[in-house]
């Protein structure tokens, strides 16, 4: 009972945080390593929502929507999952050689309508849409899709886990996401519902702000094929996010926000 209350509170907190996410809070997964060797290594992954990267200072990332895809395309379970005050954490046993994808996905609807002069707020999901009375006016429903990812590789990188779902905003790496090095250019393609997402801004923010005075962020834009490129100025963890607003919500005519977020590591030469 207690824990289900806690999860409900977490869910509400995150939904409440969503509208302001673009302005301030950043959601992320942070793997303890992205390039590994050996036969049976583990990683531990932190998940949090914070202002500054990559610090635990605001809210844990709820792990309800976590999927881990192994190098052979199978899903594997997170181990030792835990949610604390400022962060969630889980471990992944990497007993297959190749690339793992970790993704936290979520979908929610929120909005409001007017009835008898009163404004009512509603929440829901695509599966359980908010109930709007027939006589309601000023109906405003917004749907939010989000996908937060990171990658890690044991041994030789492979592509199997990089497959996309065709739902919302996603990234197809053209440069392997665990083969990134300072000073080198990497290319990625953004897809919206499986189609190239052209002319979308991507924000690139390096981690470690506590030890710098400037954010050091970069803005890049996808081309007609949805492709964007980033040259990593130095080695480190980077946070990338892109967002698309359209009118393709699962309730016809409603606005939809699709957000894609990924944490990538560039290694020194």
């Amino acid at each position: 009972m207690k824990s289900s209350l806690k999860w409900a509170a977490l869910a509400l907190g995150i939904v409440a945080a969503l509208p302001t996410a673009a302005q301030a809070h950043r959601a992320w997964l942070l793997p303890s390593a992205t390039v590994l060797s050996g036969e049976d290594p583990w990683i531990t992954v932190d998940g949090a929502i914070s202002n500054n990267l990559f610090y635990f200072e605001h809210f844990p990332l709820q792990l309800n929507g976590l999927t881990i895809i192994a190098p052979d395309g199978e899903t594997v379970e997170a181990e030792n999952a835990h949610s604390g005050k400022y962060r969630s954490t889980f471990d992944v046993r990497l007993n297959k050689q190749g690339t793992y994808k970790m993704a936290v996905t979520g979908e929610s609807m929120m909005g409001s309508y007017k009835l008898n002069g009163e404004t009512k707020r509603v929440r829901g999901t695509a599966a359980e849409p908010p109930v709007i009375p027939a006589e309601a006016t000023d109906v405003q429903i917004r749907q939010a899709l989000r996908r937060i990812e990171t990658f890690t590789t044991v041994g030789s990188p492979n592509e199997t886990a990089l497959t996309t779902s065709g739902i919302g905003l996603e990234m197809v790496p053209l440069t392997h996401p665990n083969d990134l090095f300072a000073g080198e250019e990497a290319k990625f393609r953004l897809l919206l519902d499986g189609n190239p997402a052209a002319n979308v801004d991507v924000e690139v923010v390096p981690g470690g702000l506590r030890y710098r005075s400037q954010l050091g962020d970069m803005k890049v834009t996808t081309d007609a094929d949805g492709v964007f490129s980033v040259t990593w100025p130095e080695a480190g963890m980077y946070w990338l996010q892109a967002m698309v607003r359209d009118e393709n919500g699962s309730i016809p005519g409603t606005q939809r926000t699709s957000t894609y977020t990924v944490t990538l590591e560039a290694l020194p030469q």
Partner: protein
Amino acid sequence: MRKGIFFALSGVFATPAMAADLTVTVEIPRLDVAEYHRPYVAIWVENPDQSLAANLAVWHDIKMRNNEGTKWLKDLRQWWRRSGRDLEMPIDGLSGATRPVGEHEIGFTTDAAPLDKLPAGEYRLVVEASREVGGREMLRIPFQWPPAAASSQEIRGEHELGRVSLTLKP
């Protein structure tokens, strides 16, 4: 019959036109540190675009149970990227135990792998060292293969490597 063998052999040696020797000396420096572990070291030949031309030696912990010493091979970052991650270590003739402080010499000839398959061209010798609870250092020495004349080049590391030399003999 004898003639047949002669032609077969000359066919094997046809690619690198002549026999040559390549000798690498790597010094593991003595370090004044609280906790010392012998470094992992990878020695290889790279093409001008940094792709792998030939692996020469990898000194890593080959004695640990369950091959656990492979866990730190990725700390030889450049070697791991260019070659190591595609290999199943340990490999006979490539893997060797970590070496103590001092100078270590390894020699290769065109009579045997991997130099028997190295085409003529521009290369760089790369030596990368990474030490547990320590740092990492990588040194490069450019050379032409096969050598036109005997030569010896030397470079000195500052952190994890001491003197590294490359001696070529036609």
